[in-house]
């Protein structure tokens, strides 16, 4: 079955991203397909590569980046939500005249249409948030 995953909160502050990660891993283990993981609202903050969590804590961004690499996942960060909150890739940074970007490997920035598409193309959409 094809699952779409929606993550609405940032890392560490809410359990949402952790729960979504455990769910996604379990779905993959059961042989399901993950159509897309879409990051919205504060969820876009999962996609920063500048996070430096304590050594004895999980690294949420790395977890997603590695899972994406292993399973060829499509991790999409909503561009409008990301701009509000300061998550940029190189081309967004250039367009906005910013001197740095912070998107993590394995994540890509795209439009809200990708969320609608996830709803259309997936058999199930599962949302995690506050």
């Amino acid at each position, binding site marked *: *079955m094809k699952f779409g995953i929606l993550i609405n909160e940032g890392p560490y502050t809410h*359990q*949402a991203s952790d729960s979504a990660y455990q769910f996604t*891993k*379990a779905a993959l283990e059961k042989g399901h397909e993950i159509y897309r993981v879409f990051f919205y609202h504060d969820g876009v903050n999962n996609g920063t590569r500048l996070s430096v969590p304590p050594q004895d804590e999980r690294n949420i961004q790395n977890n997603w980046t590695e899972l994406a690499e292993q399973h060829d996942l499509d991790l999409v960060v909503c561009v409008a939500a990301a701009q509000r909150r300061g998550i940029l890739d190189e081309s967004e940074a250039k367009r906005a005249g910013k001197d740095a970007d912070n998107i993590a490997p394995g994540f890509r920035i795209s439009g809200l249409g990708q969320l609608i598409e996830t709803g259309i193309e997936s058999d*199930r959409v599962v949302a*995690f*948030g506050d």
Partner: protein
Amino acid sequence: MPILHTVNKSPFEKSTFKSCLDHARPGDAVLLIEDGVYAATKGTAAAGLIAARNGDLALYALGADLAARGISEKSVIEGISVVDYGGFVDLVAEHDVSQAWL
């Protein structure tokens, strides 16, 4: 079409659990995750909410979230099934639509 409802907040902190039960149809499933699992414990001020729908709804709680919060399986209200993340995935697959009560 039966819906899988997920609730992730304590019934003492937020009204999402109550609103979910108020809007769930007989035959729907409710899965308690994260802080939502506190609603699954015996003897609380919220236990009446469960009791009123225990029977016409299928009730589940995520085992990993129960364990994290120090809730032993014997503290879980009878009629609530404890599932793991794989069971969560199965519930999503078995129901046509999932609704997260955020």
